[in-house]
């Protein structure tokens, strides 16, 4: 049981990579990339979890109450923001690819270049 979060992260990472490899649509590919990235959220949050800990916010609980690690939560926040912006940039590229070649299928794109 204590190993489950890391196994989930490994699973998400690999299933996302698999999606990228077999992808036949650039938008699907960008979504798969964000699945890969979500595995890093799980690793970060799992590493910082403290059994029985509350959120590291001491507004209505006293300082000294058992709480989870705030550092990895801040890192996850950074991770989410970067993930969103990268997705936006990649989707803009997908829009451009579709305009120029009329297809979103990466396989057709490679063959049209030959």
């Amino acid at each position: 049981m204590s190993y489950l979060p890391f196994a989930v992260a490994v699973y998400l990472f690999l299933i996302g990579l698999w999606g990228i490899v077999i992808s036949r649509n650039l938008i699907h590919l960008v979504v798969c990339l964000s699945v890969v990235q979500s595995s890093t959220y799980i690793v970060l949050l799992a590493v910082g979890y403290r059994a029985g800990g509350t959120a590291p916010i001491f507004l209505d609980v006293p300082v000294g109450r058992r709480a989870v690690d705030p550092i990895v939560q801040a890192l996850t926040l950074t991770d989410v923001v970067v993930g969103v912006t990268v997705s936006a940039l990649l989707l803009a590229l997908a829009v451009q690819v579709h305009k120029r070649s009329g297809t979103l299928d990466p396989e057709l794109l490679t063959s049209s270049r030959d």
Partner: protein
Amino acid sequence: MTSRGRRGLFLTGAAGLALLLLWGTAGLPDFGDYQHLYGLTLNAESVAATRATNAVAAVTFDYRGFDTLGEEFILFAAVLGTALLLRAQREEEEEPPEDMAPDRRPPHDSDAVRELCLGLVAPIFLFGVYIVVHGHLSPGGGFQGGVVLATAPLLMYIGGEYRGLRTVTPEAPLELVKGAGTGGYVLIGLSGLWFGTSFLDNALPRGNAGDVISSGTILALNLAVGMAVAGGLVLLLTEFLEQTLVLRSRSRK
């Protein structure tokens, strides 16, 4: 390489990678068995030191403030890149986009959706401001609140008021808001130098933990980030919408 060959190659590599990952994570401490000194120290000390009751915000905007500046620039660069990519193409198009179904009228908007969405714009905007301003006290902050703020114009679009959306979010002020947010972060960082300490040092008066006006630069940085994120996301949104909606709003008259 054929598609089948590529899959075979990937599966072989992925099997090895899976073994390595499982082996590597097996050496990590058990889930919930937390022993890191930094997190424990921050949870014990950060409220007294920064007067921010949200320890995550204290880490993001005080202890790791410099990293968040880098994150801010990533956001800035990505929005800039997206805008450039989508804009270059628009200028190349000499003729307006072709209406593929000129004989068909756009579907009628649902009154229920319209009223609900337009009615929610103001409350959502207020909620976004609340999330930004209370970032140092409770869960939330500039990044989260900025996203909530950006959904207010999105609701206008869902409500069928694309022209209204363009009226309340003209491009130039949005770029100004985004630039001011990102530049404001740097200026607030420089204020540390003004007070004779170091870049991004929390040199402002900190007040009492739990007050809305407290924790010095953490609140100020949250406001700057909130502006940057909200401006950036609405810019992204309008750039993507411009790609398809020019046609629809024209054929609508």
